């Protein structure tokens, strides 16, 4: 377990080296350095996982919670202090495995994807920074350490979204992501402070009596923390930054905005889960409703987007919302009595990280081949990119929830948990799952089936309509396809991992068993979604599709514009906040605060202008002042005597 510190140290070291001397290294060396350090890191993470789970349960039937390192970093007085350390328990070990795996895949993949890009070393430095902060986040021993790394993650996300800093869209997107998540983090911080103030402790394990005494404010504190988590995890209405974050390089989207960082909010709720269940069940229900709405909203929007990365982004939002719902529908810590959602959520987090990473990397390979994000430039790619095609299909089947791929199992657990909560919630989430299948296969068909743009262009080139020979799509190089294959393999088999053995809401082993009616209905829903997608999009846009498009034009347009959420936010910030709050504050700042400071400066200057001529270098004026001073002193003395 002591090795765990190296999991943190290696990426940090790699970040420092690449960040400080990266400019002097060649692209190849920098890339290999970053990848190698992460490879070692992955191996350590795996060995930690194996030793931890291999050591088995302690006598009370739980996996022990270990803290190999914990130092007081910032004593705040009283009993309160901020610690920094490493916490090893089932979910953090699981997260270590997920993060290092996806991060390693992304590192390898980027060797091909980012080849020849300007700032290659910088890119790897940022990737290392991100990996470091994300790992620090999951092994945090207390909520404040989590917050520190939470912000670091936000910073590295900001840096990576804005990696192409010459592109205005990327700059705007990075700013948007930073501001929105930072805004949410403000609530997180307030929540932490309330929590710390009333419990006199930042740690996750607080004894019962203190919690009981603070139980009045716990729902508030936890709710505020959830707002922070909602910002990071792109829950409605704070989701607006995530689609724009796709301006960053695609592997970054795969790592940060699909697999790891965006699930931080889910992880946060899971971390605080005993508190949520025990002291704030209303907050938990609120999380469920927010999650359910987000899931539906994102799924609907994903159905009509044309940019493939945007589709995936909304799909991510929707899937994270699934995880949130799963946590939200928990009513106790016993997995047999309404606590199943916790395990389901973590399971889905695990499988989703793999297949969503795979989808993004696949999308990256496609974008690499056709040099565009728009669906118009794609179609018929299956002939040219067989490996990408197969792996993408695997991922689509997984996310749609078709057995035996991993997504089926985890999503099935979530749906079971939802049905346990209420039938309406279960039906609702099933419909969203069907929508998921629909939009993913729409995407799949649009990319890989239908008319090939390349062939059309080639025809017109041959018949002399266009002069330029079209660029032929090609399969990605080995270092890009290898991660795809690895992730696809994991996606195929991850569903059979007895996940409940390792992680469950009360720590005791829980055997996953599929509930027949839920499983069959969800498969049927998924197949229905796929069939509709096949009919509508398999060979280009069919007549039916056009008819549907025509009949609900307004709705589709609204969905394409994401139901005007961005415009709404712009309205709120620009018109309301700027005019009503910022402007008066700015006026106050400029006139009153700056004004008083300016006045001070002006007075000083005037005074200086008045005093300066005294220092004229003229001995006679000096002597006049001297005599005046002496006389004044004499007068004072006379008066005193």
């Amino acid at each position, binding site marked *: 377990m002591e090795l765990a510190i190296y999991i943190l140290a290696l990426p940090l070291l790699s970040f420092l080296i690449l960040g400080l001397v990266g400019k002097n290294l060649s692209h190849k060396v920098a890339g290999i350095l970053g990848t190698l350090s992460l490879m070692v890191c992955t191996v350590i993470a795996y060995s930690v996982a194996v030793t931890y789970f291999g050591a088995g349960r302690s006598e009370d039937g739980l996996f022990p919670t270990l803290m190999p390192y914990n130092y007081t970093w910032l004593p705040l007085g009283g009993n309160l202090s901020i610690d920094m350390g490493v916490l090893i328990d089932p979910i953090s070990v699981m997260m270590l495995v997920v993060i290092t795996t996806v991060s390693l895949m992304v590192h390898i993949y980027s060797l091909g994807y980012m080849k020849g890009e300007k700032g290659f070393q910088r890119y790897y430095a940022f990737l290392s920074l991100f990996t470091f902060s994300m790992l620090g986040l999951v092994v945090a021993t207390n909520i404040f350490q989590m917050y520190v790394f939470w912000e670091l993650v936000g910073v590295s996300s900001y840096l990576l979204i804005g990696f192409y800093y010459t592109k205005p869209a990327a700059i705007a997107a990075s700013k948007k992501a930073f501001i929105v998540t930072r805004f949410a983090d403000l609530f997180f911080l307030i929540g932490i402070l309330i929590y710390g103030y009333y419990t006199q402790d930042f740690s996750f394990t607080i004894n019962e009596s203190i919690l009981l005494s603070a139980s009045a404010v716990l729902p508030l504190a936890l709710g505020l923390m959830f707002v922070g988590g909602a910002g990071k995890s792109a829950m409605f209405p704070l989701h607006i930054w995530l689609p724009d974050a796709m301006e960053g390089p695609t592997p970054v989207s795969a790592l940060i905005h699909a697999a790891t960082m965006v699930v931080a909010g889910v992880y946060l709720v899971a971390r605080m889960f005993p508190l949520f269940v025990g002291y704030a069940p209303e907050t938990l229900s609120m999380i469920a409703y927010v999650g359910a709405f987000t899931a539906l909203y994102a799924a609907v929007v994903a159905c009509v987007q044309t940019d493939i990365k945007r589709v995936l982004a909304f799909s991510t939002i929707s899937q994270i919302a699934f995880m949130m719902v799963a946590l939200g529908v928990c009513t106790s810590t016993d997995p047999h009595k309404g606590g199943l959602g916790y395990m389901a959520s973590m399971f889905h987090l695990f499988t989703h990280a793999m297949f969503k990473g795979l989808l993004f990397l696949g999308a990256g390979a496609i974008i690499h081949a056709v040099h565009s994000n728009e669906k118009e430039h794609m179609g018929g790619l299956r002939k040219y990119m067989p490996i990408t095609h197969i792996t993408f299909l695997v991922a689509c089947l997984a996310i749609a929830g078709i057995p035996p791929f991993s997504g089926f199992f985890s999503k099935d657990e979530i749906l079971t948990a939802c049905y346990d909560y209420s039938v309406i919630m279960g039906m609702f989430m099933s419909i969203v799952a069907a929508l998921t299948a629909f939009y993913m296969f729409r995407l799949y068909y649009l990319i890989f089936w239908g008319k090939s743009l390349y062939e059309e262009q080639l025809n017109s080139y041959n018949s002399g309509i266009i002069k330029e020979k079209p660029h032929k799509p090609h399969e990605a190089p080995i270092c890009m396809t290898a991660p795809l294959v690895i992730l696809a393999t994991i996606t195929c088999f991850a569903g059979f991992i007895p996940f409940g053995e390792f992680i469950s809401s009360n720590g005791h082993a829980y055997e996953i068993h599929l509930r027949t009616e839920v499983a069959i209905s969800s498969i049927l829903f998924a197949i229905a979604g796929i069939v509709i997608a096949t009919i509508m999009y398999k060979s280009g846009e069919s007549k039916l599709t056009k008819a549907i498009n025509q009949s609900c034009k307004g709705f589709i347009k609204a969905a394409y514009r994401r139901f005007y959420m961005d415009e709404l936010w712009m309205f709120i910030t620009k018109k309301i906040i700027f005019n009503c709050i910022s402007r008066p504050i700015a006026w106050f700042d400029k006139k009153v605060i700056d004004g008083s400071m300016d006045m001070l400066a002006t007075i000083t200057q005037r005074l200086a202008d008045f005093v300066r001529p005294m220092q004229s270098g003229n001995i*006679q004026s000096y002597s006049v002042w001297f005599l005046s001073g002496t*006389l004044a002193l004499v007068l004072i003395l006379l008066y005193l005597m």
Partner: protein
Amino acid sequence: MEHYTSIIIFSVLSLLMIAAAIAAVTSSKIMRATTYLLFVLFGTAGLYFSMFYTFLGATQITVYAGGIVVLFVFVILLIGKGSIDVTHTSKLRYMAGVLASMSGLAITLYIIKTTHFIADKLDPNGVSMRTLGKTIMGTDKYNFVLTFEVLSILLLACMVGAILIARKK
């Protein structure tokens, strides 16, 4: 009449000195100013005589009148035309000078008036040369051989310094 001789002499002397001093600081020709200064110095020597400090008066005349004023004359001759003082450039400064010195004088006079001096030790026999020599060269209490030596070194240093500064490169 006999009684008032000394007071009359003192009055004449002091009026002369004040007039000469005022002339010395207002005259626009430096040569004249120096001459007026010489009168003041002579007057001072007279004051010393009047309090029976004859040796001091003699020193005043030889060193001041004979030494310092000669130095002044010397430098004035050396500098020549540059030695004309275009006095009192600004009215303001002139008024400031008048005001400052008048108020200073007023305060000082006020203090002299309000202070009671126990002044009854004037010795009509003066100080004999023997006493003076012993005081300067003696090593007992109230004797000043150390001061004398320090002064001699100071004079030496001044001499060297003056030569060094004024010497042509």
